[in-house]
């Protein structure tokens, strides 16, 4: 163990090199797109922007933030992330608490009702008609309500609450606290680590969603999201490079932009919030995975 042979050192070197290569391959696409977003659009078209901007400019960002559509998108993305996460986590935790109470008469049937949903779904078409019949199409709540409770999250929360000492609940009951008070004053504060984990996952999911906008809110400009705007530009690039709304919009403003630069810039704008919360997530997600593993 202590003495390492020359052969060992060669192997070590190879492993380190390989891992560095993997790290570089992982990071490079982000660096490339960052460089393009900070490079002059007309210059980018010539190609060859790899690691850093050749003609540094913030024009792309100015242009992107000059679109009212994008400001709406950023606002909606932010709102659905904050409201969606808060409601989903609070609801899931509250439900999980009732299902953790061994004296609750409906504990078994309610638990089964939720667990079954992990195995099947009605499918895209029936869900589409449900959303339509509920008048949720073109409504902000279409981002919040359909995904309010995740059965998996409820199970993880419940198993965590099961592990909390029961004596605290009992003494609160003796003091005459009702179940809702016990939940908000005792259970919630004690469950902060697992709640933080789940909140981060729900938040990332909300921020990254685009398909619900595509399916249920694509005709409503006030409900567009950042991911959806980026998706539209991407689809335009993929099919053809013909003029799209972004380019026409920019011509009116008279600044130099190209779909490529705009796409790069919005990609960065949509990535940065993830990068900001990433250090916090790292602290929690391994813990969250272990919790899930313990349960299954």
């Amino acid at each position, binding site marked *: *163990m202590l003495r390492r042979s020359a052969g060992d050192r060669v192997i070590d070197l190879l492993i380190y090199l390989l891992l560095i290569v993997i790290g570089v391959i992982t990071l490079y696409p982000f660096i490339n797109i960052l460089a393009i977003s900070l490079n002059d659009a007309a210059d980018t*078209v010539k190609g060859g922007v790899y690691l850093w901007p050749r003609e540094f400019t913030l024009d792309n960002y100015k242009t992107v933030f000059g679109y009212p559509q994008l400001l709406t998108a950023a606002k909606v993305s932010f709102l659905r992330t904050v409201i969606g996460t808060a409601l989903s986590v609070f609801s899931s935790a509250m439900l999980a*608490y009732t299902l953790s109470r061994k004296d609750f008469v409906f504990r078994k049937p309610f638990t089964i009702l939720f667990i079954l*949903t992990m195995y099947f779904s009605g499918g895209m078409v029936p869900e589409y008609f449900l959303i339509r019949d509920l008048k949720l199409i073109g409504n902000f709540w279409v981002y919040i309500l359909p995904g309010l409770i995740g059965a998996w999250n409820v199970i993880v929360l419940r198993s965590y609450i099961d592990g909390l000492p*029961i004596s605290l609940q009992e003494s609160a009951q003796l003091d005459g606290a009702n179940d*809702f008070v016990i939940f908000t004053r005792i259970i919630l504060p004690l469950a902060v680590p697992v709640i933080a984990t789940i909140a981060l996952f729900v938040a990332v999911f909300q921020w990254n969603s685009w398909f619900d906008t595509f399916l249920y809110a694509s005709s409503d400009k006030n409900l567009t999201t950042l991911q959806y705007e980026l998706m539209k530009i991407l689809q335009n690039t993929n099919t053809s490079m013909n003029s799209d709304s972004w380019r026409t919009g920019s011509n009116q403003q008279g600044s130099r932009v190209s779909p490529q630069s705009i796409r790069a810039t919005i990609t960065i704008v949509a990535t940065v919030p993830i990068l900001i919360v990433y250090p916090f997530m790292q602290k929690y997600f391994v813990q969250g995975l272990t919790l899930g593993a313990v349960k299954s």
Partner: protein
Amino acid sequence: MARNLTKANGMGDPYKKKLTWKTLYEQRYLLMMSVPFVIWVLIFKYIPIWGWTMAFQNFRPGRSFFEQQWVGFKHFIDLFQDPMFYQVMRNTLAMSFLGLIFGFTLPIIFALLLNEVRHIAFKRTIQTVSYLPHFVSWVIVASLFTEMLAVDGGVINNILLSLNIIDKPVQFLAKGEWFWGILTAVDVWKELGWNSIIYLAAITAIDPSLYEAAIVDGAGRFKQMWHVTLPGIKSTILVILIMNIGWLISIGFEKQFLLGNNLVKDYSDVLDLYILNYGIGLARYSYGTAIGIFKSVVSILLVFLANLFARKSGEGNIV
């Protein structure tokens, strides 16, 4: 106290309570805290199951359930006679199996390599970097790789050109027969680090004395890896493999939708895209529902089959 948690009620389960009006009143807060979500799950998860009846009708929106025309299994028969169906099944299974071959094995190798690293700071850095792509959306990933694979000035084309491997830029995302490979590669790029976490956690649980014994027996590093580390995470590997088999048909459509385009759709259209395009896009609602039912039934069968394997291999139930 009436609501005392530990109050014994008869002999058996000390928590068990009888369903009476009195208990319901005592547990009114618990009911208020759970019943709204039960209503939610009935509406959002169980009503769509009722919607499966659409597959046996010629469903017309706006008509009531009793006014619909019933057609029995017509849509299922249509489905199995549609050549498109076999094409999307081929694409779905092809990408599933490629995902199983590479998306499943490479994270194990990555975890084994990371385990050999003794500089903690270096290991942490690589881990931090490799988990990151898991958290960005497929929209962003598709945007990044559209840029990387671009024909004019894309980095990958430029590298291949300067190495003289190709003599003119390749339209990577316009070549149908390359789509499965590109999609699998991008998927591995996104999930390699994330999927390795579970193996790294399993490796830390291996008894260090096993390594010491192996060294005494004269085992080199590869022998230690082969005879100690791999057997130590064998059960984790099996569980993950079985779970992946359960998900074979449920590969989703996000990545195919975002990376694909009209030029490659013979290779990129998967089952869920087929539902989206036919069921909603072409307003063939009943047909779309029938495909959805087919998918649900097959995936539930796969999950049960996977579970059966798990029990046979002595890993217990996993789902």
